[in-house]
C-alpha cells in the first residue's frame, strides 16, 4: 500500500536555489515530502505515481499579498469594465469600449431580472479610458426609469446612478450642496456620486450595501475559484471588518472539504481604539485555521493618487489639486505600531502618496526604538510614489513593501499626464529600486481594483507597459526570475509565511500552481499569456476545468 503520492511534471520550478528545478514532487499528508528526480524520492517507501501533470510546469502556489475577497461578491453584479476579464466560472467578459456598450450590457442584465423593482448593479466602469466622459442619470435612465441602477467605478470611490435611484435616496431635488454631488443645469444631481459619504445613502437602493467590503459566503467561494484559475493558493483579504458573524462564516466556509485556498484577512484598523484593536486581533489569532489565517492589522494612511486623496510631499499634484486626506492621525498610527510591535502582531499600512510613506517610516522608526523587533516585517502596501531614499530607509528599518505593479499598467498614463507628471510617474512602483535597496518586495493586484492574476502582475513589473502601450520607467523594470520570486516567496515573506509556503521544499505545504507553459522560458513579454491548469492546495488537486 502506498503511503504517499509522487507527482511527475515536465518541470518543477522550486524557487529553492539548492535545487532550482526538478521533475518529481512527493506529497504526504498535504505536505511536501521530497522534491527531485523520481530516484531521489523512492527511498521513502511505497508510493503512487501520479502523472497527470507530466506535460505541465509546476511552480509554488502563487501568493497574492494584496487582494480583497469582495471581488467574488462583485461578480454577482454586472461587469462594466473596459478590459476583458474572467469571472469565477471561467467565462471571459468582453471589455466595453463605449457607453452604448455599457448600456447594452445593463439592458441584458435587466432582461434577466424577474422582480420589477430589483436594482441593476454594475461595477468596474472606468471613464478614464473613454476620454473621461461623464455618465449622467439620463444615460442610465435609457436602461430603466422604473428600477434603480447604480454602477461602481473601478476606483471604488465614484458611483453613477439613474434618476430612480436618486429619487429613492431623496436626492432628486434642487438645493444639494456637496462637492461630491455635481449638479446639472437644471439644479438636480447629474447622478455622479463621488466619495463614500455620498455613495452610502444611495448604495443600499442600488444593491451596494454598507458591508460590501466583507465578502459574503458565496463571494468567498467564488473568490477562491478565481484563485484556482490564476494559480493562487494563498491570498490576503486586506482589509476586512471581521465581525463575529463574519469570522464564524469565514471559518466555516474555508474549512469546507473542497475550499481551495488559504485566506489571510487583515483586521481594518478603524472602529476601535488602538488598545482595543490589539486585544481584538489577539483574539482573532486564536481562531486561525489551516485555511484562514487571522491576527493581522491593516492601517490606511491616505487615499488614492488618481482620486487626488493621497498625501504627497512637495511639489504635490501636477494639476495643482490640494493635498489629499489623512485617514489616520499620526498619533493613532504611532500608537498602533507601538502596541503591535509589543504584542508581536503584523501590521500592513496602505500608503499611496510619498508623504504618507514618509510618515509611516518615521513612526515605525520611532516605535522600533521603543520596541526593538528584529523580524517585524511591517509592510507598506502600494507605496507607489516612494523615492530611493525612502526605500533605503525602509531597508534599514526592516520594512517590507508590496508594490502595485498592476496599477502602473491601468493608470500609469493618467499619472504621467495628470496626477504627478512624467518624472514621478516613471518612478512609481519602483520595483528595481526596492530590490536594489534590499527591501523585501511583493507585487499585487488589489483585486477587485484590478483583476487577480499574479502572472499578469509579474508581467506588469517586468515590462512596465501602460494601457496605451508605452514603456514607462525603463529603469524600474525587473527580471522575470525576480518577478516570479515576488509572487511566491516575496509575498510569503511579507506575511510571515515563507517558512510554510512560497517554494517547493521539503516540509512545506503542498501548494502548487499548475501551468501549461514555463514562465522562465516563454519570455517576459508573454508571462501574462501563460495558461493556468489549476492548483494543488494542501495536497488537494483543483483543476480549473472542474470548478
Amino acid at each position, binding site marked *: 500500500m502506498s503511503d504517499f503520492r509522487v507527482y511527475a511534471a515536465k518541470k518543477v520550478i522550486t524557487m529553492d536555489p539548492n535545487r532550482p528545478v526538478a521533475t518529481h514532487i512527493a506529497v504526504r499528508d498535504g505536505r511536501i515530502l521530497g522534491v527531485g528526480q523520481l530516484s531521489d524520492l523512492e527511498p521513502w517507501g511505497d508510493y503512487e505515481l501520479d502523472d497527470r501533470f507530466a506535460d505541465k510546469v509546476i511552480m509554488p502556489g502563487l501568493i497574492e499579498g494584496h487582494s480583497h475577497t469582495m471581488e467574488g461578491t462583485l461578480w454577482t453584479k454586472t461587469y462594466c469594465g473596459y478590459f476583458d476579464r474572467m469571472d469565477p466560472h471561467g467565462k471571459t467578459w468582453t471589455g466595453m469600449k463605449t457607453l452604448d456598450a455599457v448600456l447594452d450590457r445593463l439592458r441584458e442584465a435587466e432582461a434577466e431580472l424577474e422582480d420589477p423593482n430589483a436594482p441593476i448593479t454594475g461595477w468596474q466602469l472606468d471613464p478614464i479610458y473613454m476620454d473621461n466622459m461623464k455618465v449622467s442619470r439620463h444615460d442610465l435612465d435609457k436602461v430603466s426609469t422604473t428600477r434603480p441602477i447604480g454602477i461602481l467605478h473601478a476606483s471604488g470611490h465614484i458611483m453613477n446612478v439613474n434618476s430612480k435611484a436618486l429619487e429613492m435616496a*431623496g*436626492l432628486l431635488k434642487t438645493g*444639494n*450642496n*456637496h*462637492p*461630491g*454631488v455635481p449638479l446639472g443645469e437644471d439644479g438636480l444631481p447629474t447622478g455622479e456620486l463621488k466619495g*463614500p*459619504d*455620498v455613495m*452610502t*445613502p444611495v448604495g443600499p437602493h442600488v444593491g451596494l450595501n*454598507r458591508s460590501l467590503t466583507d465578502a459574503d459566503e458565496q463571494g468567498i467561494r467564488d473568490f477562491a475559484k478565481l484563485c484556482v484559475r490564476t494559480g493562487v493558493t494563498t491570498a490576503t483579504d486586506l482589509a476586512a*471588518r471581521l465581525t463575529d458573524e463574519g469570522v464564524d462564516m469565514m471559518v466555516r466556509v474555508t474549512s469546507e472539504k473542497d475550499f481551495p485556498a488559504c485566506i489571510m484577512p487583515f483586521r*481594518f484598523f*478603524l*472602529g*476601535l*481604539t488602538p*488598545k*482595543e484593536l490589539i486585544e481584538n486581533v489577539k483574539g482573532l489569532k486564536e481562531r486561525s485555521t489551516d485555511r484562514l489565517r487571522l491576527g493581522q492589522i491593516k492601517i490606511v494612511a491616505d487615499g488614492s493618487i488618481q482620486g487626488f486623496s493621497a*498625501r504627497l510631499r512637495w511639489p504635490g499634484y501636477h494639476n495643482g489639486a*490640494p*493635498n489629499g*486626506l*489623512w*485617514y*489616520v*492621525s*499620526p*498619533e*493613532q498610527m504611532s500608537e498602533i505600531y507601538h502596541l503591535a510591535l509589543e504584542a508581536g502582531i503584523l501590521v500592513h499600512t496602505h500608503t499611496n502618496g510619498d*508623504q504618507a510613506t514618509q*510618515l509611516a517610516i518615521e513612526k515605525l522608526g520611532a516605535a522600533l526604538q521603543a520596541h526593538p523587533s528584529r523580524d517585524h516585517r511591517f509592510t507598506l502596501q502600494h507605496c507607489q510614489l516612494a523615492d530611493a531614499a525612502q526605500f533605503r530607509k525602509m531597508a534599514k528599518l526592516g520594512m517590507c513593501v508590496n508594490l502595485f505593479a498592476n496599477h502602473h499598467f491601468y493608470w500609469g498614463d493618467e499619472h504621467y499626464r495628470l496626477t504627478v507628471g512624467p518624472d514621478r510617474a516613471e518612478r512609481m512602483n519602483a520595483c528595481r529600486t526596492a530590490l536594489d535597496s534590499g527591501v523585501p518586495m511583493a507585487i499585487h493586484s488589489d483585486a477587485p481594483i484590478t483583476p487577480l492574476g499574479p502572472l499578469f502582475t509579474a508581467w506588469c513589473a517586468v515590462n512596465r507597459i501602460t494601457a496605451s502601450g508605452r514603456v514607462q520607467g525603463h529603469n524600474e523594470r525587473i527580471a522575470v526570475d525576480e518577478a516570479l520570486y515576488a509572487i511566491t516567496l516575496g509575498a510569503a515573506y511579507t506575511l510571515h509565511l515563507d517558512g510554510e509556503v512560497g517554494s517547493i521544499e521539503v516540509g512545506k505545504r503542498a501548494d502548487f500552481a499548475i501551468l501549461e507553459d514555463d514562465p522562465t522560458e516563454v519570455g517576459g513579454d508573454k508571462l501574462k499569456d501563460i495558461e493556468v491548469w489549476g492548483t494543488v492546495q494542501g495536497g488537494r488537486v483543483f483543476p480549473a476545468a472542474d470548478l
Partner: protein
Amino acid sequence: MLPVTTIGGYLGSGKTTLVNHLLRNNGGLRLAILVNEFGELPIDEDLIESQDEDVISIAGGCICCSYGNDMMAALGDLAEMAAPPDHVLIEASGVAIPSAILAAVGLLDGFRGDGIVVVADAETVQKLAKDDYVGDTIERQLIDADLVILNKIDLVTDEAKAVTENWLSSSAPSASVVPAERGQVPIGLVLGAVQEGREYLAETNHEGSPFESFVLKPHGDLSAEKLAEQLAIGGYGVVRAKGFVTEKDGMRKLIHVVGQRWQASPTEDENEPAVVCIGLKQQLKRAEIESFASKI
C-alpha cells in the same frame, strides 16, 4: 428636521471634554453623540447608565453611538429611533474635515446642518498648523468653522491668547471665536437648539460669565432672511442667535445664526416673536442690534 452639529478639532484639543460638558449641562435636551469609535473615555463614567457594543446610554435620555466607518448609516439609524434625539453632535476624528461631514449630512432628508464647531487648543493650535504632516488639515478644519472654541485658555498668557485670536481671525474667517477653559461654554452657544430663551439667559448672564445675552423683540413686518444675515455678518458680536420672527404677510420663520452661518426657515410653531442673541461681554453690541432691527 433633526439638527446636526459637527465638532471637529485635532487630537487633544478637548472635543471629548466639550461633549461631556454639554451632556452635563444639556438644558433638558436629549443629545445624541456620534463618535468614530469609543475612545478610552468617550463619556465620563458618572454619566453612563449602561453600555453595549455600539451604544452608551447617558443620564437625561442622551446617547453616544460609535459608527466605525459608516456615519451616514448611523445617522439614518438615529432618525428611525422610536424617540429620536433633539440634537445630534458628530464628534469628528482628529484628522477629519468637519465641513465635509456637515456637507454630507446636508444630503440626507430630515436633517439640518446646524453648525461647524472646531475646538482648538490655545497652547498648540498655531504650532500644529505649521506641522509638515497635519498643518494643512488643521487649516482645512478651521477655514469653514462657524464657531471656534479656543480651549485651555487658562494655560496661556493674555498676550499669547491675543496673538492666537488674531491669527484665528484670518485662519477661521467666518467663525466666532469663543475662549474657554475645559470646554466650559454654554450649550446655547454651541447648539442652536434650546427651545426657550430662558436657558440661554440663565446660563450666560451670571456674574463671572464671559458671555452675555439678550432677547431681541423684532417688530412684525421684517424680513427674517435680512435679520438673520445681518446678525451673522453685520459685525455686531453675535456668536449665536436663535428665535422666531413674524414677517409682514404673517409668515412665521425660525432663524438660526452661528458665526457667519445663518438659516431662516418657515415654522408652524406659535411662539412669540423673539430672538435670543448671545455674544462675548464687551463685544455684543445690543443697542446697535436693536437699532438696525427696528429699521429693516
